[in-house]
């Protein structure tokens, strides 16, 4: 009994300073607001995408559930929130709850089947779920508007106070606050027993079973949580653009979200943010400069990251310090 004082290492802190990461995030969001006042719609889209990629990070990065169908929950959240706004009320916050529930319910029901599969089978099944949703939305024209999209969404002011304006100022801050709150909650989760047990599932399901964890039920829980968050992202998209099209279920969306996550680094929340911001910015700039070959640049970037920074861009500072200090 010599050293009883143990200072627990606070993971998730940058350079040991509490809330430095959060402060930087807020500063960046503020800076972007003033630097690009005419691009707020694009910035809002980035924020929504960050939320979708965060949900994917929870499912794939933490719990290790291989999926290419996160759009299923995103799209369902979008349609649910859109229909809710059309038929019930245009108040944004109840719409978010509806979107979250819709995403979570779909993830739970499909998860009951999906979480029994692994690897390639699982990936194919997740794609299938998104395709089925796409087809249902396409056929149910009377409800969803089919290929024409769901129109007639009229949003009321947020909390009855902040009217959605033409330039998108309200939308920007509204989306940011929602994404930021979810981010903070996820950060709690990542450092809590649940976060640790999800990492355990990722590392070794056999060992998790051998220490008495209900593996299947824990996986369904993770998938459902991720589905709820993806549902919120979809709901935000529906409310802000006031339109839901079949594109919300597209395979492209799931795949791009995955690329953004890999770019930033799986299994770390800041990775999801960094990857999304960089991917979407490069996409935006490169597509404007060269509408035909912009994908080449994205491909090059992904290749570079996969080869030189397999843990993602969020790992860059660590990798650089290691390079400077010499290999350990």
């Amino acid at each position: 009994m010599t050293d009883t004082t143990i200072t627990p290492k606070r993971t998730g802190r940058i350079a040991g300073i509490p809330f430095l990461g959060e402060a930087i995030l807020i500063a960046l969001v503020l800076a972007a607001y003033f630097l690009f006042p005419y691009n707020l719609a694009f910035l809002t889209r980035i924020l929504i995408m960050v939320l979708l990629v965060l949900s994917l990070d929870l499912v794939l990065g933490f719990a290790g559930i291989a999926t290419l169908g996160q759009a299923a929950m995103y799209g369902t959240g979008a349609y649910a929130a859109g229909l809710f706004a059309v038929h019930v009320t245009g108040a944004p916050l109840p719409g978010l709850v509806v979107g979250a529930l819709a995403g979570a319910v779909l993830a739970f029901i499909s998860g009951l089947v999906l979480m029994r599969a692994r690897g390639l089978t699982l990936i194919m099944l997740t794609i299938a779920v998104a395709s089925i949703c796409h087809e249902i939305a396409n056929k149910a024209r009377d409800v969803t508007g089919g290929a024409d999209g769901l129109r007639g969404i009229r949003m009321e002011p947020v909390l009855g106070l902040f009217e959605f304006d033409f330039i998108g100022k309200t939308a920007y801050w509204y989306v940011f606050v929602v994404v930021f709150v979810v981010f903070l909650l996820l950060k709690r989760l990542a450092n809590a027993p649940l976060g640790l047990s999800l990492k355990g599932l990722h590392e070794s399901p056999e060992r998790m079973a051998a220490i008495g964890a209900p593996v299947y039920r824990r996986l369904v829980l993770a998938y459902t949580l991720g589905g709820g968050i993806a549902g919120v992202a979809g709901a935000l998209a529906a409310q802000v653009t006031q339109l839901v099209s079949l594109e919300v279920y597209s395979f492209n969306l799931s795949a791009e979200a995955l690329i953004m996550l890999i770019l930033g680094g799986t299994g770390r929340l800041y990775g999801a943010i960094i990857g999304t911001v960089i991917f979407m910015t490069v996409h935006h700039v490169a597509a404007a400069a060269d509408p035909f070959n912009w994908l080449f640049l994205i491909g090059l970037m992904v290749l570079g990251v996969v080869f030189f920074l397999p843990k993602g861009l969020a790992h860059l500072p660590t990798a650089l310090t290691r390079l400077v200090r010499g290999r350990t």
Partner: protein
Amino acid sequence: MSGLKVRGLEKSFGGLTVAQDIHLDLPPGSRTALIGPNGAGKTTFSNLITGILTPGAGEITLDGQDLRALNESQRVKAGVAKTFQITTLFRDLTVRQNLRLAQQERDGRGRAWFRRADSWAEAEDEIDAQLAAFRLKDMSDKRVDDLAYGQQRLVEMAMTLMLKPRVLILDEPAAGVPSSDSHLITDAIEALPEDLAVLIIEHDMKLVFRVARSIIVLVNGAILTQGTPDDIAANQQVRDLYLGGRHHG
């Protein structure tokens, strides 16, 4: 308190019988070794007890509770824990996190999501004590992947013991451990709690004869003979089996 009882356990894969009428008693405090040539069905037996495989016939009870209806993780909760033949750990997590994971599942808070995982003070003290007992304290914040194999085996044992099992199955605890480190394993087995029932599946005869108080010899899924280490050492059949002699009948 009767410990683990196995009665008439049978298992076959198609025409291949891998467990045949196995009877076994493992009262608290027992140190029983299960030995036998490759393919004798030792690991199969362990899998039948822990619920990875379902037996074709027979009874498995722990302190009178029927285990057959329970799945793998429920049996762990009931008190049957095992270490794997090939170390199975959370390789990217630290030693401390590995132990913490086992502990939080034992205490039923694996789904808590708001409090930090390391904020249960008593639980952390328990982990410290366990790390000290296995002489792993210096490497508690290292990734498991960065440890030597012998140390990884110790981590696995320390982690499994965090579950506070009644019955512990060690599947080849010394396999793959360099002989210079094998005393670590033997020491750890000898330091196990006295009231724990331990079943050791092992090839290393030196280790078996040092720690076991009774030995069961398994051949082709059936018990060939069982007895004290002295009985087994003197048994002609077993000697033939292990020294490559021709066996009769």
